[in-house]
């Protein structure tokens, strides 16, 4: 459930920024405190859902059907290893030295002895992932989360989390690969890997939700709040 879409949703950040600018320019009536641009977000979600159902989901399903579990796990592990490196950085930025140490240890172990991150040896010996990211760091520093946005193909985000994604993409490393074809292939593989992992969850959202847009939005916001407070969020203030 970590929000690790950043590394793979990479090309989308420009869209995020453009959307944010466009939307902030024309403030609409606020249906909810966290989601002032709900009508636009709903339209974007519906667009996303159509393309996702027609194209992305079938590709992810095919990936699961064709590629053996062992290889898929290795792919996930390599991307996770990159995220662990940035989790270490963010642990440090928040002064969480225990997480910083764990994540750094994970990266050293998995990169050095796990064939560049293909094998997650660190988890086998019980070093848990810190799961920190730039969005959480901004939250820990006291920045408000800002309005919620649904960005097609990237998913749910907020101004604070989206900014974190932009920072994450900007520092790389995939974006710095000079070979365009290789770079885009890695982004694509990362995206398919994430989407494939999410298939069973999507089926459950379909069963559970009365309104999938709202279900996804609220689950995302609850989850991010929980992460920013490291699993101990204070009671939520009531809506006015």
């Amino acid at each position, binding site marked *: *459930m*970590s*929000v*690790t*879409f950043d590394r*793979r*949703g990479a090309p989308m950040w420009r869209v995020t920024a453009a959307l944010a600018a466009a939307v902030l320019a024309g403030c609409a009536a606020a249906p*909810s405190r966290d989601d002032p641009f709900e009508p636009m977000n709903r339209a974007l979600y519906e667009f*996303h859902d159509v393309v*996702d159902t027609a194209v*992305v989901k079938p590709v*992810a399903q095919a990936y699961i059907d064709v590629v053996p*579990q062992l290889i898929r*796990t290795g792919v*996930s592990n390599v991307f996770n290893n990159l995220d662990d490196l940035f989790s270490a950085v963010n642990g440090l930025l928040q002064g969480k030295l225990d997480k910083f140490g764990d994540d750094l240890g994970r990266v050293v172990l998995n990169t050095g002895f796990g064939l560049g991150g293909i094998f997650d040896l660190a988890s086998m010996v019980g070093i*848990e*992932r810190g*799961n920190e990211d730039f969005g959480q760091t901004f939250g820990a520093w006291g920045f408000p989360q800002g309005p919620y946005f649904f960005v097609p*193909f*990237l*998913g*749910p*985000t907020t101004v604070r989390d989206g900014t974190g994604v932009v920072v994450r993409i900007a520092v790389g490393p995939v974006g710095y690969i000079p070979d365009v074809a290789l770079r885009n292939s890695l982004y694509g593989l990362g*995206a*398919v890997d*994430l*989407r494939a*992992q*999410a*298939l*069973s*969850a*999507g*089926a*459950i*959202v*379909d*069963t*559970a*939700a*009365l*309104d*999938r847009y*709202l*279900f*996804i*939005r*609220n*689950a*995302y916001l*609850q*989850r991010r*709040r*929980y*992460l920013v407070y490291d*699993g101990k*969020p204070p009671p939520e203030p009531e809506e006015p």
Partner: protein
Amino acid sequence: MSAFHTSVRRSAALVLIAAAALSCVAFPAGAQEAPDAMVKRVAQEVIATIKSDPAIQAGNEARIRDVLEAKLLPNFDFARMAALAMGKNWKGAAPEQQKRITDEFRALLVRTYSGALNQYRNETIDYKPLRMNAGDTEVTVRTLVQRASGAPIQIDYGMEKKADNWKCYDVIVAGVSLVTNYRDEFNEQIKNGGVDGLIKTLADRNRGVAAK
């Protein structure tokens, strides 16, 4: 791709074990079981049943629902769950409406749980030490579900003390409360069609009409 899907894959894939948490074995009067012991006992019973039942292993959802009805559901306080999901609208609903909402919400959660349980694949559950003071009537039982592949998922149970045992009124998967997550959806339904509109939507969903 969608960040949320990633997140929810874990939360949701694991509502499953959440479901596996509470059961209805009668306890001798007076000997009240501690809430964490109860969660553990029920989870183990449900998991043992699931693992040993060939029909369930073959993906028979009706059979899963039977197991849930017998072992799991009597340990939930669905009226309180419905009230939490309704928020401030609960008091404005007539007793008859409250009952129908409770029944339909229960059915919706059971459908979700049995779908998730169908994906149960040899996860193991770590039970964290319970922090509880003498006299507490509400506690959170924390568990960590370890999976063969993928990150572990935290599943917490909000438990309340009743006259003769503890009941669960909230399941929190990776930080997402399955009950309060419905609050905006319920609100929206009530705003558009009143409490009866919400009842109708819930009933439609339970009869298999797709969500928008």
